[in-house]
């Protein structure tokens, strides 16, 4: 094997987007450092939003990778893209540090004086305290990275011809999906929901994880459309494979809408003082237009477009829907976080004393932070993608699915 060329070796052309992404990332990072110095509170909030977008792509890709190991089928041609995305998780653990530094800005329950005068926060302190928060974050990242790393390692052994991993990889995928979903649910509570420490919603974790599915599928479609331009994937990727991803995108768009609407309707129906402020903040002060934008562009328009079979089978059209969905995902995460903050000072409204209404705003750091994290993340993604063959050619299930004409 040593002298033979590696089958399905990544094309040299991916060096282009890889180095451009690094450049964008470094420019964005410089802007973020400036933002950190001049406007610290806004920096932490913007960083959290952008961070959640790219963490969602990495985690969603790991989730899809595990679903693919369990379901089998021809959409395994995208496995190496999923694997490369999930191997960016160590970078994401590093990029979590600014969130830790910004805990005082982001999370009111970190202030002892706030907790002392707030009975609800006193009761929640057993869960919402800095030490336990950091310990939980450590467990999430340790678990996610361990799963991603082991799945990749076993997949590499499969490439080398070791077929003993075929079954263990499926067991790990089953257990790993359970861990990923639980850990992501807790992470959503810790990192987003506790920004408003009085509010709670049992559907929130599902909305977070459902969003990961949209982000990861959209990113995979964009990257695969790029890879399909070059050898070796130009002969491997067929309209039917993009059709599969398009169908999954449609399903996740519907799932996202279903979870969000269910949450909205339950809160609307119950109309309780501890739940309703979350939606009052997001349907007043100008935020209602952004809410309407999300209903139209994260559900109605992509739903109607993705219904079309022809569109799903034409990568060059599907890719525009997916790219737009990635942008809308960022706005959706902005909508989860930003209405809890003061437009002028960037402080958490729940820390400020007195009456404060939230007014719609956008800060220049909300553009800089996605460029910084996105650039670094995409650079890391292509770095990881370049290290492995682009097709899991040795997987007997995948080979079988690709050879039988009716398989999906």
């Amino acid at each position: 094997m040593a002298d033979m060329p590696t089958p399905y070796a990544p094309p040299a052309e991916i060096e282009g987007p890889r180095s451009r992404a690094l450049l964008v990332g470094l420019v964005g990072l410089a802007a973020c450092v400036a933002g950190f110095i001049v406007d610290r509170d806004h920096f932490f909030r913007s960083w959290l939003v952008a961070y959640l977008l790219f963490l969602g792509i990495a985690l969603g890709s790991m989730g899809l990778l595990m679903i693919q190991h369990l379901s089998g089928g021809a959409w395994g041609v995208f496995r190496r893209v999923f694997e490369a995305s999930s191997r960016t998780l160590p970078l994401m653990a590093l990029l979590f540090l600014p969130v830790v530094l910004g805990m005082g800005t982001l999370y009111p329950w970190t202030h002892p004086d706030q907790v002392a005068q707030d009975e609800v926060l006193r009761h929640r302190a057993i869960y919402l305290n800095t030490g336990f928060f950091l310990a939980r974050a450590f467990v999430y990242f340790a678990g996610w990275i361990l799963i991603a790393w082991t799945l990749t390692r076993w997949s590499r052994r499969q490439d080398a011809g070791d077929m003993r991993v075929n079954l263990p990889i499926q067991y790990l995928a089953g257990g790993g999906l359970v861990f990923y979903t639980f850990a992501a649910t807790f992470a959503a509570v810790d990192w987003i929901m506790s920004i408003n420490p009085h509010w709670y919603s049992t559907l929130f974790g599902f909305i977070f994880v459902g969003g990961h599915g949209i982000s990861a599928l959209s990113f995979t479609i964009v990257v695969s459309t790029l890879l399909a331009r070059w050898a070796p994937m130009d002969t491997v990727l067929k309209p039917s494979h993009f059709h599969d991803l398009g169908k999954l995108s449609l399903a996740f768009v519907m799932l996202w809408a279903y979870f969000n609407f269910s949450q909205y309707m339950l809160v609307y129906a119950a109309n309780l003082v501890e739940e309703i402020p979350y939606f009052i903040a997001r349907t007043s002060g100008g935020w209602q237009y952004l809410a309407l934008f999300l209903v139209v562009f994260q559900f109605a328009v992509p739903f109607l477009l993705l219904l079309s079979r022809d569109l799903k089978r034409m990568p060059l059209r599907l890719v525009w829907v997916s790219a737009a969905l990635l942008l809308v995902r960022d706005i959706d995460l902005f909508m989860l976080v930003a209405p809890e903050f003061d437009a002028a000072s960037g402080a958490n409204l729940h820390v400020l004393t007195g009456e404060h209404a939230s007014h719609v705003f956008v800060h220049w750091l909300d553009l800089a932070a996605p460029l910084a994290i996105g650039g670094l993340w995409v650079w890391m993604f292509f770095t990881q993608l370049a290290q492995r063959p682009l097709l899991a050619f040795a997987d007997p299930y995948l080979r079988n699915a690709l050879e039988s004409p009716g398989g999906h």
Partner: protein
Amino acid sequence: MAHSETSPAVHGLLAEFATPGGLVHATEKARLEGYRHMDAYSPFPIEHLHEALGLRRSKVPLITLVGGILGGIGGYALEYWSQAIAYPLNIGGRPYHSWPHFIPVTFETTVLGAALSCFVGMWALNRLPQPYHPVFGAPVFDRASRDRFFLCIEATDPKFERYATARFLEGLHPVGVTEVAP
């Protein structure tokens, strides 16, 4: 159909194949040869057979879409009529036209309308139920639901000529070619 006056009438000619690949290949050949009135029979769906037969796009998705839209409009209208017009109730001070509460019913009736129209539309377009079809008369045909793949060129095809078509089918390496009585 001049030939049907000079020879006993047939429904068509049935060629039997051992593999799905053989059936797809034969269907493509028959289509290239100019045959249009033909049908293929297989124990399971074969992906490329659809294109080989040159079937038009099914109308079932369109029927389903229309059924779903009508179901959704109907469900919302039912809610609006009953909650806001026929029997308005003040529930916790909410407006009578409290649209978030109408969505679950609208969703359910959309699914119901789509599912029913899909089912009925598919049956109607396939002219089901159809208890009898001439190919059932061919003795070999019972294996179409088990392990054999059949291509039937029907006598209504303008290019159908009993002996020439039989010779053509024989050239496609079938397991056998049978005449199907009408």
